[in-house]
């Protein structure tokens, strides 16, 4: 076997725990990146498959860019285009069903959680889509409450020909008679429920409107088809899209954002892993100075030494990456299995298998192995500069290190200054770059700062332990081995910095979102649709329901939210129609920019719009801008009167306008979310009973008491945060252990010296004190620096979030700071206890023979 490989394997094997822990960091980073990137496409895949399946196998599907309805007459225009042979206009709408809708049984999983209501002209529809009826008959023009369903839906719902199918609708539940059954659907997606167009228009309160036009062309030739598509675009204008279905575009965007955030986390994990490997290698090289010098003395070239270290890194990188990919796949699989029912329920999609692409595997390998190699390069080059003399006179090496110090110090300080400048810029990209620069700068600066500080601390300790005469020894050890001390202290620093940074972020997120939640979900009662994430798939209620609720005895105010899809620039936007006066009574937006009073007022004067931070960032909108919003009736100009968000919609690109405007521009009058307050004097139970009675015909809504909903949401939020925290702690654990490791190595390395101390008459207690004092000095330095940098990184992260559109208030993480100090010092002492005891117990003769 190759000598370098043999050496690398032996060295790694000799320190199995350290190898394991170092590799763990890489495993974790790759796991996140690989797992997330197999998971997300699985979602995206099934989501688009859903859309594609809904589009069926026609030549072209034409929809409004916003996904909203448009007049039936558009179909005629399409039919007139040269080359179009058949056209079918439909009004289609996914209908989310409440849990246990068909089976009324909470213990069995629901097989159908949503259906797609398709209103079509039977003959046109049949001319494009082949429909075989296996039982009963096909729809006929003029059919009233008749419906054709698939065999699989009929089975799932326990219905058969002639039975009544009851579906929720904005105007209350509607009963249909099943007149025909078609074969079960082959493509993934929602079960379709086919009714005649006028019926659908009536139920969905969209007279004369459709939202999808399917067309078949006279040619399959690519060029001809492009011509026809171009002709259609000319006729219809820019507001229409040919091909992809636009419904749910905003959720697609969200999945994209989630993927980016998780990739960032994975990237951070990898960087952390890289840093740990970098530090471990610096330790390794300090530890093996003599070995390396000896190899050089007997004829190993610089390249051989460089390669030896790189191979060691490579082995860890390869193992870590392989394990990371494996665990990542498992993680994706488990998550998908766990999440599939939720995905079905809330996102209305069937999630498939984890999507592993060769590109992703290659990218993960490049990232995982690449980072270890990169992290190893500097230490490897440092190792190659170890001269043979260092095997013989180990003190020689420190000279070069000291010479580097000045240069590193100023380089690192430069980076830190730039990082601070970036923070002031308020730009997310710069801030992220600044955080990276800051961390790198600290790592670079730390070694040159550790020495003077160790001296100061040493003097301080000397005063305390003056009588035992041991502190001078501890200090002497530290300044004699500055690189070792620097490695240990900076490892501690990074670990502590992470803890404090995460603490800052979490306390800030917690406070910000809890406040937002209490504000926006503070009403007495809520009517919640099946999906609170994607409003567009929910069947709401006609204004009649709200009126009925207002009439309930003891009701003070009913505020409703209406939904429409829109587009600003290239960004898909969920538009929410609110009635400012009622809305502010039961709920409220948390403003980042703009005066709330004036903003609510402006919603109703002309076209005012409040956008949330995510949208403002995504579309580059600022307060006072006039933006072109794509609506079913063409582009409309809205003035941005505020930047604000509520809890439920904080994460999706959302805009708030008045209900008058959503009716005029989007033709929407359907309420998808209702919040209610009872009169102060009212009996809440009676009011609840009144609401229950009013919504009997609207099974699409669930009645929730406000307090309960709030608690539910806080619970969910806490769980998510706890997960996040756990993940970050997981990230910092390897560096804590790296810290223990470096401290322990320091003691082991000086075994001989300790023997000498004992030989000249130091008591066991004195030996223990020397080692403990040394560890505590290092830990204290690390903690002090970690606190400073962690607090700074925390501020940076919080302002980074703000720049990204999640405005947060910075909260000083007092408890994290205390916890960090405790953890740092305890780990520092822990790191010393075992070796200190070993050293104290050591047999003097053995100690002197060591080496």
């Amino acid at each position, binding site marked *: 076997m190759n000598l370098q490989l043999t050496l690398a394997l032996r060295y790694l094997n000799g320190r199995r725990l350290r190898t394991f822990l170092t590799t763990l960091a890489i495993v974790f980073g790759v796991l996140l990146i690989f797992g997330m990137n197999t998971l997300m496409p699985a979602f995206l895949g099934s989501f688009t498959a859903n859309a594609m399946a809904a589009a069926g196998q026609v030549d072209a599907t034409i929809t409004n860019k916003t996904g909203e309805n448009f007049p039936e007459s558009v179909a005629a225009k399409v039919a007139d285009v040269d080359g179009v042979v058949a056209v079918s206009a439909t009004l289609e709408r996914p209908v989310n069903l409440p849990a246990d809708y068909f089976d009324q049984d909470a213990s069995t999983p629901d097989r159908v959680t949503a259906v797609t209501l398709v209103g079509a002209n039977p003959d046109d529809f049949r001319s494009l889509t082949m429909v075989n009826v296996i039982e009963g008959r096909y729809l006929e023009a003029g059919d009233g409450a008749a419906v054709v369903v698939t065999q699989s839906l009929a089975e799932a719902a326990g219905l058969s020909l002639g039975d009544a199918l009851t579906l929720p609708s904005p105007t209350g539940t509607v009963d249909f008679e099943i007149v025909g059954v078609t074969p079960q659907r082959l493509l993934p997606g929602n079960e379709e429920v086919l009714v005649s167009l006028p019926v659908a228009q009536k139920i969905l309160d969209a007279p004369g409107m459709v939202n999808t036009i399917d067309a078949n062309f006279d040619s399959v030739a690519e060029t001809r088809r492009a011509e026809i598509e171009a002709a259609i675009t000319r006729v219809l204008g820019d507001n229409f899209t040919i091909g992809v279905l636009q419904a749910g575009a905003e959720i697609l965007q969200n999945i994209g954002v989630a993927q980016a955030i998780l990739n960032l986390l994975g990237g951070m994990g990898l960087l952390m892993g890289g840093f740990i490997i970098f530090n471990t290698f610096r330790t390794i090289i300090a530890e093996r100075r003599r070995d390396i010098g000896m*190899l050089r003395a007997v*004829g190993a*070239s610089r390249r051989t030494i460089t390669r030896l270290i790189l191979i060691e890194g490579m082995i860890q990188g390869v193992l870590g990456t392989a394990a990371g990919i494996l665990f990542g796949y498992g993680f994706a699989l488990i998550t998908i299995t766990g999440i599939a029912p939720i995905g079905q329920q809330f996102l209305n999609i069937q999630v498939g298998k984890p999507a592993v692409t060769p590109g992703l595997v290659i990218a993960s390998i490049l990232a995982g192995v690449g980072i270890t190699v990169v992290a190893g390069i500097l230490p490897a080059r440092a190792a190659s500069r170890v001269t043979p003399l260092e095997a013989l006179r180990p003190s020689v090496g420190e000279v070069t290190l000291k010479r580097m110090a000045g240069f590193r110090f100023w380089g690192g300080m430069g980076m830190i200054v730039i990082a601070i400048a970036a923070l002031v810029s308020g730009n997310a990209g710069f801030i992220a770059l600044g955080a990276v620069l800051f961390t790198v700068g600290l790592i670079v600066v730390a070694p040159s700062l550790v020495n003077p500080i160790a001296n100061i601390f040493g003097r301080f300790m000397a005063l305390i332990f003056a009588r035992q005469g041991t502190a001078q020894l501890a200090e002497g050890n530290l300044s004699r081995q500055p690189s070792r001390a620097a490695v240990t202290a900076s490892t501690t620093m990074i670990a502590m910095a992470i803890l404090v940074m995460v603490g800052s972020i979490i306390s800030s997120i917690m406070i910000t979102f809890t406040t937002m939640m209490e504000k926006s979900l503070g009403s007495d009662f809520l009517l919640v649709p099946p999906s609170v994430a994607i409003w567009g798939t929910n069947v709401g209620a006609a204004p009649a329901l709200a009126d009925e609720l207002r009439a309930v005895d003891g009701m003070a105010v009913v505020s409703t939210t209406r939904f429409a899809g829109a587009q600003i620039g290239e960004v898909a936007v969920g538009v929410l129609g609110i009635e400012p006066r009622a809305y502010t009574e039961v709920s409220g937006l948390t403003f980042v920019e703009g005066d709330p009073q004036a903003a609510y007022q402006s919603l109703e004067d002309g076209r005012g719009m409040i956008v949330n931070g995510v949208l403002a960032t995504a579309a580059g909108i600022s307060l006072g801008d006039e933006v072109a919003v794509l609506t079913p009736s063409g582009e409309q100009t809205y003035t941005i009167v505020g930047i604000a968000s509520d809890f439920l919609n904080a994460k999706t690109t959302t805009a708030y306008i008045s209900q008058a405007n959503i009716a005029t521009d989007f033709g929407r009058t359907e309420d998808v979310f209702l919040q209610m307050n009872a009169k102060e004097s009212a009996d809440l139970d009676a009011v609840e009973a009144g609401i229950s009675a009013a919504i009997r015909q609207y099974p699409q809504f669930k009645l929730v008491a406000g307090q309960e909903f709030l608690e539910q949401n806080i619970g969910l939020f806490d769980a998510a945060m706890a997960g996040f925290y756990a993940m970050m702690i997981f990230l910092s654990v390897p560096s804590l252990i790296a810290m223990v490791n470096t401290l322990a190595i320091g003691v082991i390395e000086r075994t001989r010296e300790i023997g000498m101390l004992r030989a000249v008459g130091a008591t066991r207690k004195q030996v223990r004190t020397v080692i403990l004092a040394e560890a505590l000095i290092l830990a204290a330095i690390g903690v002090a620096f970690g606190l400073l940098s962690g607090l700074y990184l925390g501020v940076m992260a919080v302002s980074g979030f703000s720049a990204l559109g999640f405005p947060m208030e910075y909260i000083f993480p007092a408890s994290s700071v205390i916890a960090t100090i405790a953890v740092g010092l305890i780990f520092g002492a822990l790191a010393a206890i075992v070796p200190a005891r070993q050293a104290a117990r050591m047999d003097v003769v053995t100690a002197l023979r060591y080496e």
Partner: protein
Amino acid sequence: MTTIQTEKLTKIYGHGATAVTALDHVNVHIKGGEFVAIMGPSGCGKSTLLHLLGGLDKASEGHVLIGGHNLNDLGDDQLTELRRRKIGFVFQFFNLIPVLSAVENASLPVTLDGMKPAEARAKATGWLTRFGMGDRLGNRPDQLSGGQQQRVAVARALIADPELILADEPTGNLDTRSGDEIAGLLRDVSKEFGRTIVMVTHDPRIAAYADRIIFLKDGKVVDETQLERKNGNNAEMLADKIKEIGD
């Protein structure tokens, strides 16, 4: 056979007020196949001289000629190759790589030079067996006694068939018996294979194994003695001499 020559070889550590002149215009001439011992009080520059001879460190002034080549003219890669092929080292401490077995340690120079593993192993096994280590081939350094470790180090110094062997207090860390064994080994090698050997020691008994002794004091050569093989009191004579110089 390689001759070694130094001319005005000077080494100064540090500069200014703290400068230490470890070697001060040293001229020595060592014939091919000669076994030379360097003696002198602690801190007189013995190790420094040895390191300069082996190209491990750079001279401040003057130069070392090995077989006519000036070491000052060689780059790091060429020095590395020189160490690998032409010079064998034995040191007092830290001679062996802890994660490699005896036979792997002994074969390092030739493995680094690209020799086939099996061949390198066979060669190392040969030397180790000759030094009575045949039953310890697979042991790691921490499973060997000090004397055994030094034997592995000597085997490693010899494996590439170098013309020059440099040993810095190879017995300094050993008991009397092991020390004698190692010194004996070196002398046998010198006689049997005609290797040039330069050994640093402060032990007169060990120095007595050499052909010639060079005495160093404060970085300067202060005396030289050619030893007569027949003379049984070499060690005592050297001890007296050292005492005299040390004063």
